[in-house]
């Protein structure tokens, strides 16, 4: 897959004169994204803040975020990939079929205007949310947007960034990368890391019944995943670590209550732009931290006979 052209949020604050939100509703889901980072603040090169920026929202429905937009482009559901692909063609002055473009829910003129604004921006940024990355096309929708952003650099400065949802999900990516070389879905069964989304990603694994035990922490799949996945979690021995007794706890063999990240557990968390920040807990928890529980589980296992990985030859693409 392609790369990713991105930046830290301060670059957006200081420079961005075109801010595009795609498939996300920051007004409700990331309330300070507008005010602290991307839209309202006065920046070094956008001294008038909001006045110096154009904000465009692309979504399938009018959310409260639309009020903050200069231009709201409402598109038909599941047409994001088509729209981005058309924009890629337009910026290169390549032909597109207007009749099929119409299915996106926008006119060719609207798309041309958008492409034009993108090319004319001094510093453009696209933030994309789950409305893009979790709808039909999934990772290809994200890849499309990242590719468009990269290609716009032939004309001006342009970056893209996912609006990561849950707290420290970014930290998980970062740490798995340095420890295993891959950002998520890493199989360590053979003693070295292997990666193949779809094969080793949780929902697929659970639906196929590919694991025979589970440890869940910092998530509540019992409340959010499709039923067949939950059924498998209930079927196998599951361990849950959470500050509360969750839906997942209730289908688990073991639940351990832990201190709350950043409130009563110290440590580090990564912001969506991969900047690490220290946590400053204000309370003392009566419960141990996740870190401590995990360490103690490891200590317990370390007392058992060592399990070494299979000795079969490694699979490499080079063979």
């Amino acid at each position: 897959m392609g790369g990713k052209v991105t930046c830290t949020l301060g670059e957006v604050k200081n420079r961005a004169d075109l801010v595009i939100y795609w498939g996300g509703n920051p007004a409700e889901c990331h309330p300070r994204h507008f005010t602290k980072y991307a839209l309202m603040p006065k920046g070094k090169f956008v001294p008038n803040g909001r006045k110096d920026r154009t904000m465009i929202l692309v979504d399938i429905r009018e959310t409260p975020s639309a009020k903050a937009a200069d231009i709201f482009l409402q598109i038909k559901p599941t047409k994001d990939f088509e729209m981005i692909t058309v924009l890629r063609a337009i910026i290169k002055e390549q032909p597109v079929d207007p009749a099929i473009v119409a299915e996106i829910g926008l006119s060719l003129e609207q798309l041309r205007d958008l492409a034009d604004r993108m090319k004319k921006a001094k510093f453009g940024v696209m933030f994309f949310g789950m409305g893009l990355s979790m709808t039909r096309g999934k990772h290809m929708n994200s890849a499309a947007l990242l590719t468009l952003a990269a290609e716009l650099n032939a004309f001006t400065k342009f970056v893209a960034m996912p609006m990561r949802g849950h707290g420290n999900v970014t930290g998980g990516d970062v740490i798995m990368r340095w420890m295993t070389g891959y950002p998520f879905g890493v199989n360590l069964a053979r003693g070295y890391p292997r990666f193949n989304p779809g094969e080793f990603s949780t929902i697929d694994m659970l639906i196929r019944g590919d694991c025979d035990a589970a440890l869940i922490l910092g998530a509540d799949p019992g409340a959010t995943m499709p039923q067949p996945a939950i059924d498998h979690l209930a079927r196998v021995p599951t361990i849950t670590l959470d500050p509360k007794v969750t839906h997942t706890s209730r289908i688990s063999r073991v639940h351990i209550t832990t201190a709350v990240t950043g409130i009563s557990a110290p440590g580090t968390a990564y912001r969506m732009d991969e900047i690490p920040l220290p946590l400053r807990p204000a309370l003392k928890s009566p419960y141990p931290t996740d870190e401590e529980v995990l360490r103690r589980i490891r200590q317990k296992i370390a007392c058992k006979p060592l399990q070494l990985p299979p000795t079969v030859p490694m699979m490499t693409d080079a063979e």
Partner: protein
Amino acid sequence: MELTITKNATCTFCGCVCDDIELHSDGERITHTKAACVLGASWFKNHTAEHLYPDALIDGKPATVDEAIELAADILYDADMPLIYGLSNITCEAQRESVGLAEMVGGIIDSHTSL
């Protein structure tokens, strides 16, 4: 209870991870937040230092943390293909332990990113 003020606290509710929050606490709960958004403020106020939940549960019944850790270790050790999943609302330090644990028990480790 004495009021303590924590400055430059970091909110991990959403991916913005704002680190300019001021928290006032009475030792048991956070009574006041400054700079936090609505979501952040309710996140901070929703969690207290009270002992509201059992330390641990085994098969739905209260257990000690020691017992729970022991059983958790057995389960992961005995499994042929354990899965470790989540990693969103935990610290980097805990994430690092999770990867170490996954390696030790020969499992798969995954986060919300795969969704």
